[in-house]
């Protein structure tokens, strides 16, 4: 769980009980995590920390999304509302891969 920035979304103040928020960076053409375990309702922010664009996406059944490409410093959130294993990739960079287990 190194490099794993958990921006524990103010559990005390959140109206969504127990929903957590995480951030995964794209750095050196890699995700800073290779596998994550999260709960249904949690949100992951995909933040680009490379000096070029990434295009995070998934075509998995439990959550399919295409964040489009965006530059360094920008972050886009995805809320995972269904249990399952989600393979996240980058459309641009073939070998970027991240598994998210939503339980």
């Amino acid at each position, binding site marked *: 769980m190194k490099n794993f920035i958990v921006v524990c979304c103010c559990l005390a103040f959140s109206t969504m009980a127990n929903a957590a928020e995480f951030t995964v960076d794209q750095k050196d*053409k890699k995700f800073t995590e290779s596998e994550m375990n999260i709960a249904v309702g949690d949100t992951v922010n995909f933040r680009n920390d490379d*000096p*070029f*664009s990434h*295009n995070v*996406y998934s075509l998995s059944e439990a959550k399919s999304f*295409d964040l*489009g*490409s965006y*530059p360094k410093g920008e972050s886009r959130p995805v809320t995972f509302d269904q249990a399952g294993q989600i393979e996240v990739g980058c*459309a*641009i*960079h*073939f*070998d970027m891969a991240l598994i998210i287990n939503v339980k």
Partner: protein
Amino acid sequence: MTNYSKKQLHILLLAASFVLPMQAIGSTLKAGDTSLQKWLLPGEVPQPDNNKMTPDRVELGKMLFWDTRLSGDGNMSCASCHNPLFGWSDGLPTARGSKSKVLGRASPVVTNTAFNAMQMWDGRKKTLEEQAMGPMEATVEMNMDIGNLFKWIKSNKGYKTAFDKAYPGEGINQSTLSRAIASFERTIVSNNSPFDQWVKGDAKAMSKEQVRGFGVFLDQNKGNCAACHGAPNFVDNGFHNLGLASYGDEKPDMGRFVQLPLARMKGAFKTPTLRDISLSAPYFHDGSAATLMDVMQTYADHGYVEGNISPEIDSINLTKQDMQDLVAFMEALTTPPKPFTLPILPLD
């Protein structure tokens, strides 16, 4: 080691004269600098566990690569389109297949494909082994009846011996044939260019113009080239739409989008290596740039067809001098060609 000789001093001064401030990109333009070592390719070529390179496998692969009898008309081999005389491509804008039919995309070089995360302009094959049979099977390319192919190879004593030596007990089949060709392709490596010598510390290996060109290459506000042509193989294992004129065709080649239907992939093609690039004109997947200078002009113009151009191209800002220096730099990426020995093919 207390006194520098005149020659050493000269070298030190020469090295010092190449030091330019390049803070934005985190690399120092000084021969041998530690920040540059990431540009050296690994000493050993990556090989899958089930296909470690052996001399017998490479030799068999070389025979198959050059054997025209692997095509339907008996007149095309892998080497017809991937020819060392043309930097392991064919010197044509786009390939010519069976019956000389003009195909849609340029023949990609074989050089350093061993280091790629995937193969083909659209990445539809992952490994060299997966790619090897493709052109034989394609009716527009080598147009070979695969059943007949193996019937013939199995009847050829010379090949039978060569397969037995390369893959003992595994027989002659798509797997052994593909692995042999892939083993040969893994020997086609460019890793000893003047640039590599310079990275290793030989300040005289590149000219002043070439070093300047590398600075333009790295500078995000000038060439921004390393955003996609990254270390060490000058690729990002990625796909980009460059806004080439052919993307404006009525039914343009959609490239990677066919494999991965996400908007950004429309008209996007794989970033090719720049190692040995001076040997394989014309350039781009559609062969639309005759020279490296034409390539530079395309980037300086930020492409020609709007719609899905890679954002990395927006920040490019090149003067004529920058373009000339970049071309000079790319010429420093060519490993001096070594003599190549052709195989003798078994007639029966």
